[in-house]
């Protein structure tokens, strides 16, 4: 796992409403990571795609733009169905999982 430095929140953890959203997102992350790992083991590309799509749309609004970016890159890779991209999919997936893990553990 390559531990990346978590990017600073784009939300304000001192604002109660922002803190509530950040807390919710961080609480949800471990389950999402599990789903991603399981899907990767089963080579279930549809599930990976769906989750990446959801994280791309949601993570920035919860104050985690870097997770959003990683998810977007993974989604882009999945749209390209060339065999050569499988290695890259794995790399993007690992990057996303690593990033999620770092936030989930860091909290």
């Amino acid at each position, binding site marked *: 796992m390559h531990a990346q430095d978590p990017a600073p929140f784009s939300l304000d953890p001192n604002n109660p409403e922002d803190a509530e959203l950040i807390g919710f997102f961080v609480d949800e992350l471990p389950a999402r990571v599990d789903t991603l790992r399981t899907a990767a083991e089963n080579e279930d590309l549809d599930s990976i795609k769906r989750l990446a799509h959801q*994280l791309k*749309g949601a993570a920035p609004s919860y104050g985690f733009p870097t997770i959003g970016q990683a998810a977007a890159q993974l989604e882009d890779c999945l749209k390209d169905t060339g065999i050569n991209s499988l290695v890259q999919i794995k790399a993007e997936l690992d990057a996303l999982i690593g990033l999620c893990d770092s936030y989930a553990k860091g909290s």
Partner: protein
Amino acid sequence: MPSSVSAIHTRRGLDLGMHTAHNANLDATPLVLLVDDSKFVHRLLVTRLRSESITLHSEYDGKAGLEFAIANSPALIMLDLDMPIMDGFETLRNLKDNPITKDIPVIVLSGNSATQDKVTAFDLGAVDFICKPFELTELRARLRVSLQLHSVMQMLAQKAMIDGLTGLYNRAMFDQRWQEEYERCVRHGHPMSLVMIDIDNFKSINDGYGHPAGDAVISGLARMMITEVRKSDVACRYGGEEFSIILPETSPEDALAICERIRIQCEKTVWPNHPGRTVTISIGIAGTSVEATLDRDQWLGQADKNLYAAKNAGRNQTRVTDFATDSQGLSRAG
């Protein structure tokens, strides 16, 4: 799951659920339906829209969203495109195909900002398209605009079918509903009655006590009608001092009982503007206790004929025709 935010207000839709116009209500806190397969989106919007005066309800797939919309007629739907079971476009198509939901404004939410998706959404009848990740201030502004538009359209639609003085359906709406109810009656072979009511010597009230007194009589009689009819009945101000009531699933005999209650109530009423001058009404009923045997215009004509027969026989009475038995009855004032 943020179930605490899902307080559901059941309300009647404008065109199908609402049968007497006086029941229409324009709600202060509009019901907004959010259809998205992502828990993240629900939690985000529930939190970020807390300060808006709306009731937000969550559904997680297109099929469930469609069912909720049909049952609850929300003021606005926010609809995600990328969903399992029934995707956003399919859901939108279904919403626009259904007469109950076709006028509900839909804002499409999407993680893809592809132009083709936007064009497709608008072609299918969406009022707006918002990309994820959301700019929350923009989303709130767009939400408000769509809700305002909806409430103005509802108001206009209501004004177009409601009589301003009485709150009953107006003549245009009567013509439309009479056609619909007639066709339903013919199709199902069920009983139905049509009632025409006219205020006796109405001109002398206007001439003797002024137009406000006349207006008070018209709206007072409308209230008596509203008290007696059921939700499935269609009470209208046909014009001037003339009223009509469509009574689906009602035999002429039962219609007579309802009309007699209205007639007697009217006769007994003491009017503040003219306590010594009672007001009476004449009534013509035409209906069938079995099934429809004549055409729509003849039916209406028979109700009218009965009304004028009641007038000619001395007013303050009801004349009935049952097409099924071809029997004509008469009910006089007690």
